[in-house]
């Protein structure tokens, strides 16, 4: 199997290097064929690995590929841990990546940077695989930063577009704030466990949790709590949790295929994956779990609200992604790691689909992204319409769709988690995810109705060209629509309630809310019937109904309300003023600090007073002697040099 694992990782890397360095030689078709074949191979082999581990009962593999460095007894390796959690992630990543590779043929068809784009997305696939397949923190961090790099390069792919390069820089820097916490967390792991390898660290988890660290003198904190919170700060950056969410909406400036692949389906879920992977650590700190729940709940609800006021088709979906990532985070916080990963998987399918459908609309509309200028596209883009409908239904949790199973299980888990005895945090979380369902349905169907139904608001010129693009665009839509529709039905049993993850995910017995739910789980159909007794389905229906009423039936109402509640609208329209805070507060503040330290401390005090002051004093004293000297620097230098050479020569000679 080792050869297979290496091939899965290296095939996309190889393709990325060839397409990147020799793109001109192999041409456009050459680069897309090469990368598609490479990613296709990775996908096929990933399925093989999944089959081996799940159906054939294969053993978990944990091994070192090569030693990066050894110092101080700390072994820093590159190695793979292939268990069912990893295998699931590999399958999802390579499948979505493959779809996006194919789709890109159509979407980027006229772009001069075609080969570069393929090189980047293949490099991304490699990086993401390195991240999920890591068996140690070093490689995890490598993959973590590498996906960040590719995300930066791809957001700024259209390098003449000022907003895009700004968004790329912003994404990288905000992620670096998260990574700042992440690397401190890793350093903490090394300090307390003496190793970077997952297996060793997890085995030492109990010992870590029994130690404490004094960060503020006189206050002892549990070492595990500190480590977990630091690691989670990393997850907040990568998975765009409030308040480090600000980069994700802006990342929509990049090409749509990567919005689907990186900023919806895979990279942004790396934080979720990481916390699930670290479940043996997080389980030992209820404080850290409470932090996770709180951040997730805030993100899930507040970011959903912002989706309602956005008018850019991609930004609506971006806020939806933020909100859904919040859902996953809440699930992590209530120790329902499997539910988080399950939602991660279904979300990867339906959200990638939604983005690609949006991309299809954008191409048809000649790169118009404002949903207020669309409408009635149903009859022009039938395939896009039906696949987008499936994605939207899955997103809002329509019974039977993949999103229904994952989201409903997640909400159930949160609602049952109060018996942890963790107090009000969990009630806030429950309320957030529940109200979030209404909000999700509202913004999703608002967008859906405005784009596909109602009055046709585009100009004549655009309308005359409206049609589905080629099969390379529609086939990935259809292939993604299938799992979006049905995968939940087939997988909820095994993934959530039949111990699919085995030892990959560790849950303390008194936190195990999924096991509790599992007692009353009797198949997918029963789960659906049971859900009809809960509030979530009705809230979703109410959200969709509200959207229908407001945006199709009485379209003048939103305008009216907007004027009446201008305070609320401004708050939402300005995204709670986070961007202002960061750009006018932190970024400008940082520049002012820099300016002060440079011009005042460096130039004025150190150079002006100390250096020049001393020099001037000496200069005055030396004024008397100056008569003897020429004052030409190079005279002195040559004198020294000649003196030195002759001196050395003389010594060596005699």
């Amino acid at each position, binding site marked *: 199997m080792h050869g297979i694992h290496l091939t899965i990782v290296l095939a996309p890397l190889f393709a990325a290097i060839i397409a990147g360095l020799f793109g001109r030689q192999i041409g456009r078709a050459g680069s897309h064929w090469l990368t598609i074949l490479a990613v296709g191979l990775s996908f096929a082999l990933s399925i093989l690995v999944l089959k081996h581990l799940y159906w054939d009962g294969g053993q978990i593999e944990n091994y070192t590929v090569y030693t990066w460095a050894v110092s*101080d*007894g700390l072994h820093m390796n590159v190695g793979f841990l292939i268990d069912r959690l990893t295998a699931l992630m590999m399958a999802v990543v390579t499948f979505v990546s493959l779809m996006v590779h194919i789709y890109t043929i159509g979407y980027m068809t006229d772009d001069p940077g075609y080969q570069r784009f393929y090189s980047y997305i293949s490099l991304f696939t490699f990086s993401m695989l390195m991240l999920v397949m890591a068996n140690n923190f070093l490689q995890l961090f490598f993959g973590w930063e590498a996906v960040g790099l590719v995300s930066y390069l791809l957001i700024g792919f259209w390098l003449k577009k000022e907003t895009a390069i700004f968004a790329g820089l912003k994404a990288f*820097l905000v992620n670096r704030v998260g990574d*700042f916490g992440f690397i401190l967390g890793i*350093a903490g792991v090394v300090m307390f466990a003496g190793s970077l390898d997952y297996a060793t660290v997890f085995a030492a988890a109990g010992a870590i949790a029994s130690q404490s660290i004094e960060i503020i003198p006189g206050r002892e904190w549990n070492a595990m709590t500190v480590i977990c919170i630091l690691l989670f700060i990393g997850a907040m950056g990568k998975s765009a949790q409030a308040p480090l969410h600000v980069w994700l909406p802006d990342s929509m400036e990049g090409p749509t295929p990567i919005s689907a692949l990186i900023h919806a389906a895979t990279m942004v879920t790396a934080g979720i994956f990481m916390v699930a992977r670290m479940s043996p650590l997080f389980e030992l700190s209820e404080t850290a779990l409470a932090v996770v729940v709180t951040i997730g709940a805030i993100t899930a609800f507040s970011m959903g609200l912002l989706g309602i006021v956005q008018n850019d088709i991609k930004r609506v979906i971006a806020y939806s992604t933020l909100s859904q990532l919040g859902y996953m985070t809440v699930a992590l916080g209530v120790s329902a790691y499997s539910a988080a990963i399950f939602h991660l998987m279904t979300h990867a399918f339906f959200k990638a689909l939604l983005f690609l459908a949006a991309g299809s609309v954008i191409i048809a509309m000649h790169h118009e992204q404002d949903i207020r200028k669309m409408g009635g596209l149903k009859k022009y883009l039938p395939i896009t319409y039906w696949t987008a409908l499936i994605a939207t239904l899955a997103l809002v949790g329509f019974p039977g769709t993949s999103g229904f199973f994952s989201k409903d299980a997640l909400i159930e888990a949160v609602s049952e988690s109060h018996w942890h005895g963790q107090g009000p945090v969990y009630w806030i979380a429950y309320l957030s995810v529940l109200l979030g369902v209404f909000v999700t349905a509202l913004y999703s169907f608002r967008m859906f109705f405005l784009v596909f139904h109602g009055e046709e608001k585009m100009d004549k010129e655009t309308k005359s060209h409206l049609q589905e693009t080629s099969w390379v665009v529609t086939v990935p839509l259809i292939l993604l629509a299938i799992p979006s529709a049905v995968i939940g039905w087939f997988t909820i049993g095994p993934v959530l309630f039949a111990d699919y993850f085995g030892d990959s995910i560790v849950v303390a017995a008194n936190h195990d809310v999924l096991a509790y739910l599992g007692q009353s789980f009797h198949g997918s159909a029963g789960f659906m019937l049971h859900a009809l007794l809960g509030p979530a389905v009705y809230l979703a229906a109410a959200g969709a109904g509200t959207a229908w009423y407001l945006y199709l039936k009485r379209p003048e109402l939103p305008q009216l309300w907007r004027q009446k509640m201008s305070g609320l609208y401004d708050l939402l329209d300005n995204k709670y003023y986070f961007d202002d805070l960061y750009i006018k507060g932190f970024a400008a503040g940082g520049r002012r600090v820099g300016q002060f330290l440079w011009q005042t401390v460096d130039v004025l005090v150190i150079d002006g007073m100390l250096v020049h002051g001393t020099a001037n004093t000496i200069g005055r004293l030396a004024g008397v002697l100056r008569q003897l000297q020429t004052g030409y620097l190079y005279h002195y230098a040559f004198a020294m040099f000649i003196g030195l050479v002759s001196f050395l020569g003389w010594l060596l000679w005699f």
Partner: protein
Amino acid sequence: MDLSHIILSLLTWLPISGGIAVLMAGDGGDSASSRAAGMRLLSLSVSLLTFVLSVFLYNNFDTTTASMQFVERSPWIEALNVEYFLGVDGISAPLILLTAFITPLVIIAGWDSIKERPAQYFAAFLILEGLMIGVFAALDGLLFYMFWEAMLVPMFLIIGVWGGKRRIYATMKFFLFTFLGSVLMLVAFIYLYNKAGSFNFFAFVELPLSLLEQQLIFIAFLLAFAVKVPMWPVHTWLPDAHVEAPTGGSVILAAVMLKMGGYGFVRLSLPMLPDGSMYFSGMMIALSLIAIVYIGFVALMQTDMKKLIAYSSIAHMGFVTLGFFLFWSIGSGSGAELGITGGMVQMISHGLVSGAMFLCVGVLYDRVHSRQIADYGGVANTMPIFAAFMVLFAMANAGLPGTSGFVGEFMVIIASFKANFWFAFLAASIMILGAAYTLWMVKRVIYGDVANKNVAALKDLQPREFIALGILAFAVLLVGLWPAPLVDMMSATVNELLTQISQSKL
């Protein structure tokens, strides 16, 4: 023929004599003449031969021992008991490799961008190379000091003759800062010589010294080394020197000369003055952290690319001194080795990355004759290959894993967390600040629409520039993806060093 007994002398004197030969022959006052072309070729050959010799050194280097290798030892000035004593261990060998690796690249980079006195220019670099290797190989204090001071002369000429408009000011500042520091080092050497009866470094290490003696000598060394590193607050000469230096001068200055300071700490201060180092470790850590955070902010505001990279160098070198002095707050045991190793890896990495960054600026300067960020914008449109290199090196400068920039920083951050959470907290701020100043510059220079007609007229890399940057890119990735060979080279010596410093002299 067994080279092992003369390899260090060859590495030292081959470039020096080659340089003198080039200097003597000259270019006949015409940079376009065939004689000048011959001198270029000769200089390149000498530097390449030196590099080949350094590869021999690497191949025959025994990583299992901490003792000095390739030792050459003979009496020199017998009346004073001064020896011609050369040898390398895991601390100095990587730095010699770095020097021999960078110099040919500098010669390639200056190939035809130096129009004025090219022969003298290349000669200066060859002589400088030999002297720098001499510093790293010398094990006798007087020999060390002579190389150390002599090194200033060619650098001083490089900036003074081929430099920019304010070159005289910059040269003077550079010279005075470094010279004043080194004089105190000489005084310390003479004091130690009087007690030990020789300038031999091993005699210095064995010499019992009282705490006061150690403190005073530490301060004398500190001034010499801190200026070179440079540490805050004696760093202000560096931005000026870099801005005025020609590209090659900046590359050598950043890549190798700054390492002299770091090397001095591990070669002299730590083993010779264990208690003095202990006494001042808190201060050293504080100064290192100030360099990382304070300079990070200052770098953010630079409008001149070379100044920005110069400030970034100071911040990155802060990691070197931080790593070296973490030992003391951790106490003997886990973490110390990681800190010192990390600091040394950081020296090598910084040599590659900052060298490459200065070469990149040089590529642009050769075409547009401006170092101002504001004079550029959208360079990627006209120079895509160059842009790819620049982004790669910028990422290495920002410490991206997979590049050499990450290795040392990672080790030092981990080691400093063991010492104190707040050390790691401040050190890790480079994750944000380093990315901010580097990538903000990249954004303004590389990305965007073509900013002006100068940028529109840019031609992408010439073959020689491509070769120089390509080789550096390879090295940056190699060290980043597989640092084990480098770390293994250092490992035995670092352990020996830790034993030395854990033995109090009191």
